[in-house]
């Protein structure tokens, strides 16, 4: 028999604490679409995606109904596009991006990820063309997300790519200036990128992945916050236990949805990504969890320790609840998508430097951070390099999704709408990094990359 208090707990989590499955992401390999004719390639890519993911949205809706659990996003990730896009011209990639956007539109999904390139050790001609196309491709499409991996623990950091991407981000911000430089919200620079991440903007379908796969990203900051608040003044051992138990329940729900989606779509189940992904909705904030632990405001001394504990407890609880865990798996700390983070920036307790420290103990990096539009490309590159260094040395994923909002200054506000939220423009350290970035080359892989 089903226990009454279990029923009420689950319903309360969904109704009051914003429990949801954040995304069902179908990964599709496009390796077999490759051809040197761009027109044929665009058609093949469109046809394959729309055929494979034909029933993704309707199946997601059916599962929502069956279990009574909201599934917020249904998305698609594809093979990194530079592996199939050829090396003729950036225009080819813009055309390809438009074909992907049309496919996303046909399917009714809100984002499609994988307009990506892996250049952590060096760029091929195709990678160079793809990266050159990013500003135009992302500013002329709606649903396509792009990412570039510029470093890894095994390969070091490709500083030539880092230098170039600072300009890419600036150009993308300029081309989407009429819309708060929103193009930059669809572009992320990674170190140690996971190949099975279901979350945007960094999702892509890695080369070691099967033909087609279902990955699910769970969420639940609101549920964890409620559990922490309810726990009262307990010590950290007890608090960690409470978070683990909550993460277990949330992840089990994700696993159930993932298995059901896999069964209904007849596509193998890949992983569950155990991430705490905040939304701008009140009560669905990672910053508020940290504050519920006893910090006056997110960013106060103790924030990094609180986040480290939270991140670890979420993984420990979730790992047992799912047969395969992957993706980013940890707490996300995007500024614009988290009301608590926005408030913390506005009241002056959270700075870019503190966020950088926090990224060394959580699952991603500097995410959805609006910075002044006149920040130089070299400074953006240098921030990317700093983040990549944290990832490389600590053997973890780090990322940068910075928005140098064109024409905006510190204290201004940029509005993206929907799940992307809004963000106050944050100050950046203005001392120059020009000569440092101009050096180019590769930062060698750290000694602990030699593990064999």
């Amino acid at each position, binding site marked *: 028999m*089903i226990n009454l208090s279990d*029923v009420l707990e689950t319903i309360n989590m969904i109704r009051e604490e914003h429990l949801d499955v954040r995304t069902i992401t179908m990964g599709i390999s496009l390796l077999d679409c490759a051809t040197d004719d761009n027109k044929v390639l665009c058609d093949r890519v469109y046809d394959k995606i729309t055929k494979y993911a034909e029933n993704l949205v309707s199946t997601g809706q059916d599962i929502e109904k*069956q279990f*009574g659990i909201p599934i917020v996003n249904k998305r698609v990730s594809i093979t990194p596009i530079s592996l199939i896009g050829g090396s003729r011209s950036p225009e080819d990639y813009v055309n390809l991006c438009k074909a992907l956007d049309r496919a996303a539109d046909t399917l009714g999904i809100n984002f499609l990820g994988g307009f990506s390139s892996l250049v952590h050790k060096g760029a091929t001609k195709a990678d160079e063309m793809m990266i050159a196309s990013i500003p135009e491709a992302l500013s002329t499409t709606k649903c396509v997300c792009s990412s570039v991996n510029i470093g890894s623990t095994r390969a070091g950091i490709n500083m030539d790519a880092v230098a170039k991407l600072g300009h890419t981000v600036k150009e993308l911000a300029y081309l989407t200036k009429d819309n708060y430089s929103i193009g930059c919200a669809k572009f992320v620079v990674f170190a140690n990128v996971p190949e099975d991440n279901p979350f945007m903007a960094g999702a892509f379908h890695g080369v070691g992945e099967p033909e087609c796969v279902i990955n699910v990203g769970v969420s639940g900051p609101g549920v964890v916050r409620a559990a922490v608040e309810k726990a009262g003044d307990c010590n950290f051992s007890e608090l960690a236990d409470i978070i683990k138990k909550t993460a277990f329940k949330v992840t089990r*729900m994700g696993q*159930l949805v993932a298995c059901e989606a896999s069964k209904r779509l007849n596509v193998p189940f890949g992983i569950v990504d155990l991430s705490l992904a905040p939304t701008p909705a009140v009560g669905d904030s990672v910053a508020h969890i940290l504050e519920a632990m006893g910090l006056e405001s997110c960013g106060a001394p103790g924030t990094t320790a609180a986040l480290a504990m939270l991140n670890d407890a979420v993984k420990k609880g979730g790992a047992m609840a799912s047969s395969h865990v992957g993706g980013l798996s940890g707490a996300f700390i995007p500024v614009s998508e988290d009301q608590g983070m926005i408030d913390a920036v506005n009241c002056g307790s959270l700075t870019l430097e503190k966020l950088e420290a926090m990224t060394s103990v959580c699952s991603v990096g500097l995410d959805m951070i609006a910075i002044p539009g006149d920040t130089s490309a070299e400074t953006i590159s240098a921030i990317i390099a700093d983040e990549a260094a944290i990832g490389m040395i600590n053997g973890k994923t780090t990322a940068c999704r910075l928005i140098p909002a064109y024409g905006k200054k510190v204290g201004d506000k940029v509005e993206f709408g929907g799940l992307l939220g809004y963000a106050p423009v944050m100050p950046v350290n203005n001392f120059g990094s020009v000569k440092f970035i101009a050096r180019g080359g590769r930062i060698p892989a750290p000694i602990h990359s030699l593990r064999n």
Partner: protein
Amino acid sequence: MKAVVTVTGKDTKGIIAKVSTLCNEFGANILEITQSVLSEYFAMVMLVDINELTQDFGSFVDSMKDLGKQNCLIIDVMHEDIFNSMHRI
């Protein structure tokens, strides 16, 4: 297969009658009911057998939701698997 129907809202006459009538119309067999009223607040959890539903599960969920709206109640119907997976190892 079983589903859990939860009904919450302000107490009025005939809530159980309406919900159970709809269950009958859809061919859902009521296995268990837990119900109470606390300061005019009505709460009920029903376990129903859905093996012999006359229509698909989705329409049962929608009809229950509509019934809730018409009577100022919140009615959720969820497959039992979600409770089993979240609360049992």
